[in-house]
């Protein structure tokens, strides 16, 4: 399936990735060729094949419901670009 510039722009917006016009144009070509390669999958009959998400057929282990984590705000916020009063700052969110 070939891909149009609008598809790239749409994906970039969903992924919140700023792209220049040039970049977007160059990705149209790359991604089209990658998708073309991916289209070779269509040739395989998978009608009776279940999708495989994990290579091992194991199941989820459960964690005991206990509080094991203590407050480490100061440590965690040391790598944060903008904090105040213990809050992460972002441009004004309008509800």
């Amino acid at each position, binding site marked *: 399936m070939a891909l149009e510039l609008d598809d790239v722009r749409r994906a970039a917006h969903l992924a919140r990735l700023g792209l220049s016009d040039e970049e977007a144009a160059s990705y149209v070509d790359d991604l089209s060729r990658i998708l073309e390669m991916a289209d070779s999958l269509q040739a395989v009959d998978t009608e009776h094949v279940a999708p495989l998400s994990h290579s091992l057929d194991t199941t989820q282990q459960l964690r005991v*419901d206990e509080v094991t984590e203590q*407050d480490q705000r100061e440590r965690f916020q040391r790598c944060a670009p903008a904090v105040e009063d213990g809050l992460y*700052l972002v441009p004004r969110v309008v509800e």
Partner: protein
Amino acid sequence: MQWETVIGLEVHVQLATQSKIFSGASTAFGAAPNTQACAVDLGLPGVLPVLNESAVAMAVQFGLGINAEIPEVSVFDRKNYFYADLPKGYQTSQMYHPIVGPGEVEIVLGDDRTKRIRVHHAHLEEDAGKSLHEDYHGMSGIDLNRAGTPLLEIVSEPDMRSAAEAVAYLRAIHAIVTYLGVSDGNMAEGSMRCDVNVSVRPEGQSAFGTRAEIKNVNSFRFVERAIAFEVERQIELIEDGGQVVQETRLYDPELDETRSMRTKEEANDYRYFPCPDLLPVVLDRAYVDHLRSTLPELPAEKRARFENELGLSAYDAGVLSSSRPMAEYFEAVKEVCGDAKLAANWVQGELSGQLNRENLSIADSLVTAQQLGELVSRVKDETINGKAAKQVFAALWNGEGDSADAIIEAKGLKQVTDTGAIEAMIDEVIAESPVQVAQYQDADPDKRGKMIGYFVGQVMKASRGTANPQQVNALLKQKLAP
């Protein structure tokens, strides 16, 4: 034209776990910002989720409580979108294989009719954080304490036909989750919130109208108000020749209206796919059966038992089973006094009145069930009359004594049933009221019934309320007979 309202609810219930759904951080309410957001909750690079077993157990208990299918396998998916309060850029949820399958909830309507509302499914997911809009130099602040709190999202079928039904359904869900103890149901703290899907259609039409989704409504009253407003808006819109747009709306309690959430962007595309960091959750039969065996009696069963075994009216049974603390209190009172109807009257009458006046919940009652049960026992065995009982209740409430008996003793409220003593008081009243006696005796016999009230009142006053009113009545009739 007659319009029919169609409502479906998505109820988000915060599960009462100690720790988060995928991390060991505390879920306690009200901590300082970001002090309960651990590395996993913050979505630091490299962290991984591990599922909380209590969240699973609670979800299954809810499912069993609504007679739902519990699928053997459920799977977590990622719902991808960017938002300030969503740390990882995706919410871990269950899109295709939820933990709870189809079930149903019985609701009781105003006229004691019941109706079954189908639940499409319920799934586990993680809550997001909170944006605080106080001005931080033109910025918003993000608190991720709530991020990762386990939620059970309960999705109904569009089976409700009025705001009242929607509220009854929400109350029923509230009762079930609090009965089960899987949630504290505290709506003020956000433990239960819902998205309301509302549409209208001409009566008799089978196709649904276009629906609007009212997001994040967090009280019973707001649900009722939001639906009322929205139904009216949609009907007016259609009758004026317009069309309802499928959209997300917000209910504003201050203006009592719903309004469209300004969506600057195109419809979202959440790109759901199975979360590769979590494996399929497989619940074996023995585990589910074990949880089933530990389920408490649920509101619908309790209501039926109150009605059928205890002989309460449908109304009383409904009210007394509406919440677990209420039902437990009532049953304790009944246990002590041995009379379900008297217990029901007292819990619903004097106690509920007092709680309402002071805006307290039954858990905060200043009179314990044991105390009230003893008080009701004294009414039942006629140690005190009804009027005195109210005094005793007030005294218990005000902490003037530890038990009904102690207060009765201290205040001398024991009912006087000694005929001689009552006669003496009657004689005294008669002697002091010659005018009234004459009026009574001259009156038409039909009117005397009302007039005797004056004398009863005087005698009761003389006895400080302790005389047995029936006895007083009977003796007065005899003595006043012309």
